[in-house]
C-alpha cells in the first residue's frame, strides 16, 4: 500500500490501516506472550507469599554495621513484599486485559475492543514508566545517603 500523508485538517486516524493477516499474526503473538508474562508473574507472587508465610521470613540479621542493615527482614519485609505484589498485580491486570480484549477482537467475538485493548497496554506502559522513574529517584536518594 502506498503511504499517503493525511491532508491538512483531516483526522489522521480516520481510515487506511487495517489489521491484515500479518498484523493479526503479530497482535496474536503479543497477546500470547503477555498472557504468559501475567501467568508467570502471578505464580511468582504466589511463591513469594508461600515463602513469606511458611516461616522463612527472616533473611539475614547480622551484627555487622552498614551494609547488612539492608538485609534485615521481618514484618517490614512482609509489608514491602505484599506492597510489591499488589503493585505487580495491578500492572499485570492491564497486561491481562490487553491480552483478553485483543484476542476477542481478533477472533471476531467483539471486534470493537481493539482500541480498548491498546488502551490497557498504554496504561501498562504508563505505570511502568512512572514506577521506573520513582525507583530511579529512590536509588539516587539512597546512593546519596550512602555517599
Amino acid at each position, binding site marked *: 500500500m502506498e503511504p499517503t500523508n493525511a491532508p491538512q485538517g483531516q483526522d489522521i486516524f480516520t481510515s487506511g490501516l487495517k489489521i491484515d493477516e500479518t498484523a493479526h499474526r503479530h497482535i496474536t503473538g503479543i497477546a500470547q506472550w503477555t498472557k504468559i508474562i501475567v501467568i508467570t508473574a502471578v505464580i511468582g507472587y504466589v511463591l513469594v507469599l508461600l515463602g513469606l508465610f511458611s516461616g522463612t521470613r527472616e533473611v539475614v540479621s547480622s551484627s555487622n554495621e552498614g551494609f547488612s542493615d539492608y538485609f534485615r527482614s521481618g514484618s517490614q519485609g512482609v509489608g514491602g513484599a505484599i506492597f510489591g505484589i499488589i503493585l505487580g498485580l495491578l500492572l499485570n491486570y492491564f497486561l491481562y486485559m490487553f491480552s483478553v480484549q485483543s484476542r476477542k477482537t481478533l477472533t471476531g467475538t467483539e471486534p470493537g475492543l481493539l482500541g*480498548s485493548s491498546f488502551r490497557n497496554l498504554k496504561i501498562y506502559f504508563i505505570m511502568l514508566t512512572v514506577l521506573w522513574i520513582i525507583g530511579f529517584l529512590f536509588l539516587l536518594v539512597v546512593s546519596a545517603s550512602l555517599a
Partner: protein
Amino acid sequence: MEEQKSLFEIEVDDNAGKEMNELSKWTKLFGIIVLCLIAICILFLAFSWNRLDEVITVEAAGETAGLMGVVAVIVIIVAVIAGIMMFFLVRSANRIRRGLHNRDQLEFNDGLADLKTFFVFMGIFSILSLLSNLFNLIPS
C-alpha cells in the same frame, strides 16, 4: 469467505488509532528512560569500581577472588540484553507512529513485529525468573 474477510479486515478506527499513537509515545519514553538508566549504571560502575571493590572486600572478609569480575560480567550481560529489548521497543514505537501517520501498512506491521519481539524477550525472562524461584524453593 465472510468469516475470513472479517478476520483479516478489522479496520484501525479513530479510537484504536489514537490509543496506538499514545501507546507508541509511552513505549518510546519508557525505552529511552531505561536506556538512560542502563548508561548511568554502567558509568556508575566504571567510576566507582575501586570503591565497590573495597566495600565488597570488607563485607566479605577478604574472600572476593574474582567477585568484581563476575559482577562486571553480569552487569554487562544484563545491560546488553536490556539494551536490545529497549531498542526493539523504541523502534516499534517509531514504526507504529509512522505507520499510523502515513497510513503505511508495512511500517505499521513492522512496528507490531518489533513490539512482539520485545514481549517475547520479556516472556522468556519471566519464565527463567520463575524457574529460578522454583529452584530456590527446592530444599538442598
